[in-house]
């Protein structure tokens, strides 16, 4: 086994860290307070190719693989979970089109979102369902040249950015769930105010309303009835992104805790050097971060090297759960090291706590993902 990264992987990680330190970290507090992402951050990420790391060079991607993608997401998300959310969700849309799109669709949609000039969304969840295609109420009905889309989608990331959106809707005549790609802000597209969520601020989350949105026939993604397959792909690649994102929260919590343990003084000695329970907390954080890190990095490697897609689906689901839950553990320990100060908004750990706590419940709750993973394990 070789745990070394290639020079290219190291440099991508370093570029992400440098951008995070120099450009994101100074405004992270403001992103958190306003729940808004400055356009310069998105533009800067785009210039560095951070939206296209794993995608093919012929569509403008870095073709650097999913391990590089996770390494970069970890560093970027450490500074702002909202940044991780924007990139991860964009990559979900890209992955679905990459798998199901025709060459014409790929050429039409991939390059601009790989460049980060247009940011993708993926819309499945509705007020009445999280991931059950049978309960979808958003419908498409046949129109003369294509389809008409009507309904409401809930908790849709990146819905406030211009760009393509992959929508899964129920065909009104056949009852089948089918995926389409539409342009956000087309006629009939409207948005709620952004949700005020506990964490990942700056990664805008909206409800989206469709009223007689015209979809040309050529915007059908994959087969009629292929909506569930699209969801499965979205689940796999979404989990890879979120694993990187929540690994970033684990790292942020670990670093903040370690720093505080080293810097907070008690009668002339740092609490980390003085108190046994702080030492144990430091060990716990390190142990848990390492476990989460290797889970995540292996997932990145697996996404670049898998043979059986079901095995990748299992690993993506379970790694995301493990890393997200571990990020909360570390944040809790780190907060404990901070004592009363950890409860204050002035201290970064309080913000990291909010970013970490959302982990097990976004894009597939922990129980759902465990049940999915268990199904693959039990059925082989």
């Amino acid at each position, binding site marked *: 086994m070789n745990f070394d990264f290639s*020079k*290219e992987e*190291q*440099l*991508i990680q*370093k*570029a992400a860290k*440098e*951008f995070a330190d*120099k450009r994101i970290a100074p405004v992270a507090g403001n992103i958190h307070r306003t729940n808004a992402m400055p356009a310069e951050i998105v533009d800067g990420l785009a*210039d*560095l*190719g*951070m939206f*296209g*790391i794993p995608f093919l*060079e012929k569509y403008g991607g*870095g*073709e*650097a693989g999913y391990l*590089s993608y996770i390494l*970069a997401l970890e560093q970027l998300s450490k500074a702002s979970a909202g940044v991780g959310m924007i990139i991860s969700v964009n990559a979900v849309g890209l992955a679905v089109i990459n798998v199901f799109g025709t060459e014409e669709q790929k050429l039409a949609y991939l390059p601009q979102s790989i460049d980060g000039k247009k940011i993708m969304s993926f819309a499945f969840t509705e007020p009445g369902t999280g991931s059950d295609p049978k309960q979808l109420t958003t419908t498409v009905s046949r129109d003369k040249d294509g389809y008409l889309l009507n309904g409401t989608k809930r908790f849709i990331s990146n819905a406030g950015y211009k760009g393509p959106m992959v929508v899964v809707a129920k065909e009104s005549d056949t009852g089948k769930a089918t995926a389409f790609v539409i342009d956000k802000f087309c006629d009939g597209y409207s948005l709620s105010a952004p949700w005020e969520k506990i964490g990942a601020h700056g990664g805008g989350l909206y409800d989206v309303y469709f009223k007689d949105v015209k979809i040309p026939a050529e915007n059908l993604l994959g087969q009629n009835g292929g909506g569930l397959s699209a969801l499965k792909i979205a689940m796999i690649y979404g989990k890879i992104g979120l694993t990187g994102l929540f690994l970033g929260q684990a790292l942020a919590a670990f670093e903040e805790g370690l720093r505080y343990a080293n810097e907070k003084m008690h009668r*002339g000695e740092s609490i980390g050097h003085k108190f046994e329970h702080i030492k144990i907390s430091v060990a716990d954080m390190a142990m848990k971060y390492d476990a989460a890190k290797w889970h995540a990095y292996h997932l990145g490697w697996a996404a670049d090297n898998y043979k059986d897609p079901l095995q990748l689906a299992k690993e993506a689901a379970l790694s995301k759960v493990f890393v997200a839950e571990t990020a909360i553990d570390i944040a809790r320990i780190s907060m404990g090291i901070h004592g009363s100060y950890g409860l204050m908004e002035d201290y970064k750990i309080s913000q990291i706590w909010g970013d970490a706590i959302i982990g097990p419940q976004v894009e597939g709750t922990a129980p759902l993902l465990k049940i999915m993973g268990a199904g693959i394990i039990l059925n082989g």
Partner: protein
Amino acid sequence: MNIVVAMKQIPDLQQIRIRNRCPVLDDVPLTLGKIDKNALEAGLKIRENAGNKGRVIVVSAGNRDIEETVKEALAAGADEACIVVDEAASDLESSISAILLAAAIKRIGVADIILFGEGSGDNYSGQVGARVAEILDLPQVGYAGNVETTGRTARITRVLEDREEIVEVELPVVVCILADINEPRIPSVSQILKAGKKHKEIIEIDDLTMETSGRRIETISNLAPETARKREPVNTCGALCAVLEKEGFWAR
């Protein structure tokens, strides 16, 4: 126009650990000096201002790792690299680095502007640029805050402690760039992936016939400084004044 940028492979200073006052360099990733990155950025800007004509070539000398380390410079915009690999060289002293770098520059052939950082990130001795200028018998300008070229003339601002002077000199010239005069660009993902494909000329030390006549510096000790400050709390300005008075810095 060929712009040569000399860069030094150094341990990532942020990651050096101190154990029993001794620096531990094992497992510390290698990188290129911070001021060297300012020099590279300056080189890229000089080329841009010259209508993007010419090449930016990185030269470096170090152990085998340098072949990988130099990718960082190629990713950041250098066109090619010319490196001297000396397996034994983990800690080259300035006089030897200068000889190796001069050999690499001669191998490149045409070098119109040769850029260094004002000092390396680790040792910050600031000699190598001047030594290379002497070996190559070229004029030198240190602490450069700005470099412009018009035809075969360079106009360089040298920033001293209390003055700035503008000098002009015919190319070729060795210029040592002031720290932090620019913000080195962060390489993009695709530039990083392309770095490995750029041309790298690798010179094995054994293929060079020049003399390096051994070390000229001996290090007797290298330890983290001990801090033995009193750390006495002072609670009021009155108390602080009393301290300043007692120590003889102020009289009522």
